[in-house]
């Protein structure tokens, strides 16, 4: 028997938006939750752009978002690097580098990998590999297999993290979803008193969003947008709920209270 959800964690890419466009039902669903006082937090593995870039993109698409509503794996990665006083080789796009300002990058002793097509070519990967072979540690901002983009499915950060893991025989420390720490840190930031089983995580990636959340003790809901493919709900574990879109999800959450 699943406990009632008192707060909602929302994935962004593929759940709320794809590129510069909001997904149908997303705005309505989010507004429904907010107008009923349900606390929400956007928990995203996005590593191609900084928080401020991301916020601007969503606002331009028509969704009002405050920076403090965003919990990104990029900021969690920066906190991690800082806490361990690491000097990273940053495999990040220019727009994401802002979130790493002030971090020492000379004489790197670690490799930080985000979604960075401009870095995912032979020469640069070779550079990263040689550092790893020389005792550097490997940090993955996320390990997503693929994402939904405007022109279809596109190979994700996780594939290139696998490249480096396979070559160096080292396992990456994964910052973002499906890491348990990531979900717990997001909840703590939203409301330190919240228990995992009181939070509903909603996303389009059945493994990284839904299964990951369930393994961290949260309620996991799959939404059939973004990278969702027919049958995903039966392939990997069992989502607690499956929704067509965020509007349907909000109707469910608000409907719970009436029961």
């Amino acid at each position, binding site marked *: 028997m699943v406990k009632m959800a008192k707060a909602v964690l929302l994935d962004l890419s593929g759940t709320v938006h794809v590129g510069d466009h909001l997904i149908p039902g997303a705005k309505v669903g989010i507004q429904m939750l907010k107008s009923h006082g349900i606390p929400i937090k956007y928990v995203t593995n996005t590593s191609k752009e900084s928080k401020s870039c991301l916020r601007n993109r969503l606002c331009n698409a028509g969704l009002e978002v405050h920076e403090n509503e965003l919990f990104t794996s990029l900021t969690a990665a920066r906190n991690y690097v800082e806490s361990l006083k690491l000097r990273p080789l940053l495999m990040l796009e220019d727009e994401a580098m802002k979130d790493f300002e002030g971090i020492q990058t000379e004489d790197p002793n670690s490799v930080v990998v985000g979604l960075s*097509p*401009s870095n*995912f*070519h*032979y*020469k640069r*990967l*070779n550079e990263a*590999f*040689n550092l790893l*072979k020389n005792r550097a540690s490997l940090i993955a901002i996320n390990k997503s*297999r*693929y994402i939904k983009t405007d022109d*279809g*499915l*596109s*190979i*994700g950060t*996780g*594939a*290139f993290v*696998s*490249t*480096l*893991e*396979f*070559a160096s*025989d080292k396992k990456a420390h994964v910052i973002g979803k499906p890491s348990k720490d990531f979900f717990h840190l997001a909840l703590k930031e939203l409301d330190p008193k919240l228990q995992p089983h009181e939070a509903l995580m909603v996303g389009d990636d059945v493994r990284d969003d839904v299964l990951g959340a369930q393994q961290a003790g949260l309620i996991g809901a799959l939404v059939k947008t973004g990278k969702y493919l027919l049958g995903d709900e039966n392939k990997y574990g069992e989502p607690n709920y499956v929704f067509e879109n965020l509007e349907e999800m909000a109707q469910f959450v608000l409907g719970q209270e009436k029961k």
Partner: protein
Amino acid sequence: MLELKGGKVKGVLCDITGVLKESATTADGVAIQGSIEAIERLRKAGIQVKYVTNECQCTRKSLHQKLLRLGFSMSEESIMPPAFAAREVINKENLRPHFLVHDNVLPDFEGIDTDDPNCVVVGDAVEKFTYDNMNHAFRLLKEKKCKLISLGKGKYYREDGQLTLDVGPFTAALEFASDQNAMVCGKPDPLFFQAGLMSLGLTAEEVVMVGDDIVSDVGGAQKANIRGVLVRTGKFTAQDENHPVVKPDLIVDNLKQLVDVILQQ
């Protein structure tokens, strides 16, 4: 006193890069000291050699010519590169490949139908490993449900003195993203070693494999019940002396030292 246990060696499966020669980006590379004479000594002793290589940055003919220019002597047919093993699979299973391989190996795939691909063949493509090319291959695997074939699955090799990424890490990327396992044509696949044995006309007990890659060469051979000897040239690093999984039947400084041991039997 170095010793190789087991039956008398009548045939050798020999790796090329890291055993016969060190790789370089320019020219033909450099012959490893003692290797040319070692091959000659095996020939004079009537011990057959087949060259089981994962080399896929050039055609077999071109590789053969490089080795001749360096001073080695062997027939072109004694060289067994992964492209030839892949061709057999492609023909047998009626596959139409999309190639993500080095341009210089493409002539070894001439005549194969590549329209409307139903498989992706990935090799040591080096500079062609770009995000866009990887994404294109991924889409074929995920959306068109193409089969994935990898020409070898080595992690890295040594070139110009530096360790450099081999095809394996890129195959791993495509496997991870598309949720499927590649069929490996080349080392460390046991079928590749068995093809080597068939080509020699000898049993596993009569043969020894020598290479610089503890996993692909030594581990792969041992899985095919062939004795595996590791050399301390090529991509070898000190860590390989104590590999957590693979225990070579013998570790020698170089090919010359192995031939000394074989001829002492």
